[in-house]
């Protein structure tokens, strides 16, 4: 390798490192804004004081009890959604893969709704995330089983549509059969997806699963690069593709299920985040994971700040906002991928 090539490689690595630093700074900034934004505005100094146990009692309560859990959840759930999207896109070598298009959050929501409707959520708190994770696992597993090994875009998206419709119908059935109207209303609002009024109890409920899911996904990263050559070539390089597939399903289910259990369904972050960072860090699916997680965290934090700032008569739920932004983006991606969608992918 000549010197100029070696320098060029370093240049690309430097740019990636620069992007990571930039995204980290952006996330920190958004964390501060998230802690400061609400009916009572707090400056970064006031936030720091409150976090350290100084400042007024009111400020401490606002930061510690109200805004910190919400911010931590936004950070963690946004991050795991971005990471899950990047991991699924790496596994399936497909830029349109994402948890929400595959029905994972919808299925997790069904699992959670079932537990809420049966009244189990109050008795045993971990029933909620466990049910959500189990349902998310089942949905991703069924999707990959239906779509098969070398599924094209069309098969994946149609299967995802079918699974999310089924999850939606099952959720509707639970609400339909539920005799208590207050429970139905609670479920309906919960389904919209929100980080509002979450406490540290919610954080403790979701965070272990999200962290475990993130760890599982992160450890598979190098295999994604080998998988760029197709499953057979990856196997010949020593990648156990079947095991990798299982680990991705487990990681996505743990992360998305754990997140959905406390936030309700928040869509499209997993689809959008990898696309936003690809122009900055390149297409290498292994190098996409960390920036996608940061971008996902930034997106959800920003959306959650936006719902607090946008003036409206009643609260806008953050899940509604991410879908309203995400679906047009999805349409744009379909237009961009139109050729491969039309080109005999069945």
């Amino acid at each position: 390798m000549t010197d100029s090539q070696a320098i060029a490689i370093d240049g690309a690595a430097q740019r990636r490192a620069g992007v990571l630093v930039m995204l980290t700074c952006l996330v920190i900034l958004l964390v501060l804004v998230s802690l400061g934004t609400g009916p009572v505005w707090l400056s970064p100094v006031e936030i720091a004081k409150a976090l350290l146990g100084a400042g007024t009692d009111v400020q401490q309560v606002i930061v510690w009890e109200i805004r910190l859990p919400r911010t931590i959840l936004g950070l963690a759930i946004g991050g795991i959604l971005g990471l899950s999207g990047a991991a699924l896109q790496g596994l399936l070598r497909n830029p349109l893969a994402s948890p929400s298009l595959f029905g994972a959050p919808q299925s997790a929501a069904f699992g959670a709704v079932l537990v809420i409707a049966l009244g189990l959520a109050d008795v045993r708190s971990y029933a909620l995330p466990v049910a959500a994770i189990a349902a998310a696992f089942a949905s991703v597993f069924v999707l990959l089983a239906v779509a098969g090994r070398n599924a094209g875009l069309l098969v994946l998206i149609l299967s995802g549509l079918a699974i999310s419709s089924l999850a939606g119908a099952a959720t509707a059935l639970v609400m339909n059969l539920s005799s208590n109207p207050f429970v139905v209303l609670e479920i309906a609002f919960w389904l919209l997806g929100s980080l509002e009024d979450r406490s540290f109890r919610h954080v403790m409920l979701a965070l272990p699963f999200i962290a475990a899911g993130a760890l599982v996904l992160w450890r598979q990263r190098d295999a994604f690069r080998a998988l760029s050559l197709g499953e057979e070539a990856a196997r010949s390089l020593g990648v156990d593709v079947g095991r990798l597939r299982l680990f991705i399903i487990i990681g996505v289910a743990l992360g998305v299920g754990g997140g959905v259990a406390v936030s309700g369904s928040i869509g499209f972050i997993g689809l959008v985040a990898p696309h936003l960072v690809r122009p900055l860090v390149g297409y290498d699916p292994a190098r996409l994971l960390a920036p996608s997680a940061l971008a996902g965290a930034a997106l959800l934090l920003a959306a959650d700040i936006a719902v607090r700032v946008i003036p409206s008569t009643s609260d806008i739920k953050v899940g509604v906002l991410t879908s309203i932004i995400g679906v047009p983006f999805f349409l744009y991606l379909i237009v961009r991928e139109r050729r491969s969608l039309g080109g005999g992918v069945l």
Partner: protein
Amino acid sequence: MIAPLLTATGVRVRLGGREVLRDISLSLAPGQLVALVGPNGTGKTTLFRALAGLLPSQGNIDVGGQPLASLSLAQRARRFAYLPQGHVVHWPLPVQDIVALGRYPHGATDPSRLAAADAEAVRRAMQLADVADLARRPVTELSGGERSRVALARVLAVQAPVILADEPTASLDPRHQIDVMQTLRAASRNNVLVIVVTHDLGLAARFADTVLVMSDGRLVSQGKPDQALSEQVIAEVFRISAYRAEYRDEAVIVPWDGP
């Protein structure tokens, strides 16, 4: 007589209830280029997959004196460098990262942090396959010929004792076909066993030290090119006749007409 590097005894493979490989036995020494020929659908690719341990088979396969079944996926990956058909790459990765994947079986999973030995193997492979100038180009922007050379470089970078190349010359112009075969033959001279699937009997006759002829899941003929591809074999297996000659001490076989 050199000890064989790769032996197979009574290898059978069933796929979807159909017997694709029936009782294949072979014994191949290192340091030679072997051409595997046969009509479409006779099981050449399946034999490659079975030999590399990528699909389950009955019978015994030994590589370097060790039974394939006793080797882990990673150990197999270091013994067989496998070049599948088509040279698919799903993301626009730079050429050097693709070639560096050849070091994946050796534990070098991150192309931006290669140890000196791995970087040297990548550099040599890119040179041998003549893709050093393309190192930073996204592989998806390359022509078919360039892509197949990149795929070849990736396989050479493994530095495995056995190279299995499935139609490495397909869809290449004559110049590149000859380049690829010459590169593979040069690789075999470093005590490597190179097996190439090809439909080009001319290339097989000219470049191979040994030709294996498959028909309907069986190995029906093997030996030096002019013996293995005798008039009778060509007529029975391919149902064609061929013009046969010798040019500069190498066999020339040009498929011609019905038998």
